[in-house]
């Protein structure tokens, strides 16, 4: 399995994702500079958190034009997983790869805390190791994590099981407490919480580990099925 972590100017959770995948889970992992075109090699692409291009204008607005984004679209079209965490999620919505948008937290403040999340759908590349309805605790750190989407799309998302994580105590005003979603095909995933920050006992909590283990499991399954 080979993971590629995209580095945009201003990414800063790239090293955190790398650490978990490479050091904690022993996966083959590489950083991918934002102007890279060839990402054929990678089984899974991670768009990490941070402040790509300073998050100026809107979070993720400028990063969507990076060269690598075109390749990511191709990668995704093949059904390979693309995971956007925090700023990565914002980039995916800006790029139109995921529905909805992320706007300022309802309290207008940046929030760094640990959020309780409910697993809403276990049949996805990032949740298959969790139990349905399981409550996990994952750090959040964002100023614009308030998910908005129009009613029709929301209904459609519900119908297709596209809501993956919801907040138990909504911190930011997200519609129907949404913390993470996916596309209809379930291979493009975006979430505001940071599972990479909850993957080592030393940091107080390992609830995020199953997120990454799910991906590995999913990829291995896929390969053993000859896909």
């Amino acid at each position: 399995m080979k993971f590629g972590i995209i580095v945009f100017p201003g990414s800063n959770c790239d090293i955190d994702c790398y650490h978990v995948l490479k050091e904690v889970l022993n996966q083959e992992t590489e950083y991918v500079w934002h102007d890279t075109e060839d990402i054929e090699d990678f089984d899974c692409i991670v768009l990490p958190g941070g402040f790509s291009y300073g998050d100026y204008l809107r979070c993720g607005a400028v990063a969507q034009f990076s060269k690598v984004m075109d390749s990511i679209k191709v990668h995704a079209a093949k059904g390979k997983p693309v995971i956007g965490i925090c700023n990565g999620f914002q980039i995916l919505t800006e790029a139109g790869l995921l529905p909805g948008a992320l706007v300022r937290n309802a309290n207008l403040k940046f929030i760094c805390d640990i959020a309780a999340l409910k697993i809403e759908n276990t049949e996805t590349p990032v949740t298959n190791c969790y139990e349905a309805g399981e409550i996990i605790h994952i750090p959040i750190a964002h100023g614009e994590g308030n998910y908005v989407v129009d009613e029709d799309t929301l209904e459609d998302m519900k119908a297709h099981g596209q809501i993956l994580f919801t907040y138990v105590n909504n911190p930011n005003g997200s519609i129907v407490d949404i913390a993470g979603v996916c596309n209809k095909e379930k291979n493009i995933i975006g979430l505001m919480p940071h599972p990479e920050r909850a993957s080592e006992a030393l940091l107080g909590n390992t609830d995020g580990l199953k997120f990454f283990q799910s991906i590995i499991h999913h990829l291995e399954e896929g390969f053993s099925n000859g896909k």
Partner: protein
Amino acid sequence: MKAKVYVTLKKSIADPQGTAIKGALHKSGYNNVEDVRIGKLIELDLGEITKEAAEEQLKVMCEKLLANTVIESYQYEII
């Protein structure tokens, strides 16, 4: 050619910042204020191009970058 672009949140999207400012204005005694919405004003200097070219560029810039049309509307003005 210079231009101004106005980006505003769509009506259906809540504007917590606007609401907060409305609250602050009420607290300062402006109880008449019924609504406040916060948008962006983007001033561009497009250099030496024709009005038509400017018009064309602005439309694409707005659609692709300056506004997120999922949540925002835009207007522009060439000056």
